[in-house]
């Protein structure tokens, strides 16, 4: 696997330099179609592990959902044709044109609640809102099949609100977002060369002070590097797509079982209410009934725990493989990033260094 990756790396570097002339100047683009970066969601796990049972949070499954659900949002945004490339990434990138981050607030068979925050490259928050949807057996959207989210209307609402938020800005503002995005990337990569273009305010937002020349050679190199990184990011995004397609049917099964468990729980509650006053107080029948109500409620919870283990048994190896591959690719990007930073720093030094006096000119101090 690592040999394959090495050869891929080699090709990518060659590709990046081959494409250099094309990438040097940014081609004209529709600035409303911003590039969207969706980091893996925050699984929303309670800080205190003792609360997992109480809140019925299965931590391993939440972590899987945190990688799985962003893909549904990515697909929805892509299908809306309102945006440029939409990518799922392992961690947030502050230089992304638009970052759509999510936190899972609640996820069970019937209900999904997400907090969605959309922030552009200037740090301006477009959207910060909780979205929730409850889908019971009776109102399952038609045509829902494995891999298609029962909560598609929720993702559609997020996509619509993002588009509405975007439409509130004029093209000039959006063009500034793209400029800030590339300059933030450039500042991280070659801080000396790009000092003075941006200003970070006290509230963390970033302001554009001035723009480099369109034919600035350093900026052309930066675009070249970003283009190469995007190729890897697309490959990572592809891994999330694979994960989605591989575990979608099992995930649907898990949700179906969870839904069934909620139904059992409702039946338990109904049974407890019906039998509450059947037997005389203090009789064996009454005591047994009280005990059995607790017992069956606990057994339902334990069956859910077992299903969570079964889900993890089935998808765990796929997730582990995918995580390892993404980490490998991300590691490669991080490693190259360091190299690029060093090379660009040296280039900038060479370009800006005052010419040294030639040796043997005979200049001496008098």
């Amino acid at each position: 696997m690592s040999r394959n990756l090495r050869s891929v790396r080699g090709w990518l570097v060659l590709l990046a330099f081959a494409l250099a002339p094309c990438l040097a100047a940014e081609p004209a683009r529709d600035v409303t179609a911003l590039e969207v970066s969706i980091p893996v969601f925050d699984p929303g796990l309670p800080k205190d592990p003792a609360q997992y049972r109480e809140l019925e949070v299965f931590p391993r499954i939440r972590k899987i959902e945190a990688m799985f659900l962003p893909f549904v949002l990515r697909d929805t945004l892509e299908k809306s044709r309102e945006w440029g490339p939409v990518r799922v990434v392992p961690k947030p990138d502050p230089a992304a044109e638009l970052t759509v981050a999510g936190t899972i607030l609640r996820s069970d068979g019937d209900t999904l609640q997400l907090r969605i925050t959309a922030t552009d490259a200037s740090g301006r928050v477009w959207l910060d809102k909780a979205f929730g949807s409850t889908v019971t057996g009776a109102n399952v959207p038609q045509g829902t099949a494995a891999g298609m989210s029962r909560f598609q209307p929720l993702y559609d609402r997020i996509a619509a609100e993002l588009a509405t938020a975007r439409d509130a800005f004029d093209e000039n503002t959006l063009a500034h977002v793209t400029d800030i995005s590339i300059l933030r990337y450039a500042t991280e990569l070659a801080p000396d060369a790009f000092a003075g273009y941006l200003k970070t305010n006290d509230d963390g937002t970033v302001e554009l002070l001035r723009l480099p020349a369109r034919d600035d050679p350093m900026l052309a190199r930066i675009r070249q590097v970003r283009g190469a990184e995007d190729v890897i990011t697309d490959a990572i995004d592809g891994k999330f797509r694979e994960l989605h397609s591989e575990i979608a049917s099992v995930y649907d099964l898990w949700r179906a079982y969870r839904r069934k468990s909620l139904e059992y729980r409702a039946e338990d509650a109904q049974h407890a209410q019906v039998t509450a006053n059947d037997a005389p107080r203090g009789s064996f029948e009454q005591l047994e009934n009280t005990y059995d109500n607790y017992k069956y409620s606990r057994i339902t919870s334990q069956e859910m725990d077992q299903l969570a283990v079964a889900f993890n048994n089935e998808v765990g190896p796929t997730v582990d493989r995918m995580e390892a591959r993404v980490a490998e690719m991300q590691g490669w990007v991080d490693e190259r990033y360091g190299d690029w930073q060093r090379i660009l720093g040296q280039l900038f030094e060479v370009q800006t260094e005052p010419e040294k006096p030639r040796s043997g000119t005979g200049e001496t101090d008098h």
Partner: protein
Amino acid sequence: MRSAVIVLLCGLACACARQPVVDPPPPMPSKLSAGLPADFSGYWQRNYTRDEDINGALEAAYRKLERSLPQGGPPGAPAGPSPRDFNSLVALARLAEKITRPDEIAIAQTEHEITVQRKDDYTMLCSFYDDAAKATVNPYGQEVCGWDGKDLINQLTLPGGLQITNRFTVSADRKELRVFTIVASSTSRVPFTISRFYKRYDRLPPDFHCIETLSMKRVCGIGPLQQ
């Protein structure tokens, strides 16, 4: 106003008169010094030769009930516990017999949790996080654990004043386990108590290793399966 106070006093008096004579609950320390004080893990099989006889336990509880009654009642009044008192005690004994019926239990123990798996019943759960016991709560009751020295105590509180306490004591050589169960209710003057004994045994490693999956149910194979 005066009548309201009288009603309140009468209410309190009645409540005190009905107060059952229950052994004080075992101490439930909220903090653990370091780690779990004893190791209960393993498979345990009922040792019927050491078990307390249910009828003997009922007789002992009945005698306790007799002693709990006020001495020297009015002349002509029937001596001893009322049929209602007796029936309440028998109800507790029957429930205790049902709860303590499993002849095998499997105890798993980690740094934070102890689970006691019993056939035909729910798995008892004791959670300890941040050096404190965490309760398991659902709409039908609450379960919490604690330690009394090296004894593990699991206390289940159910609606209507029903309380079931299990005290687990493991021998120093970890070969024997004693489970002392107290079933108490606000409907009975005295609790019912019974001891069950278990011997530890080792399970042979299985020929097949199985894991549960969602889509294929149980999947088995020779050699360890990936979890």
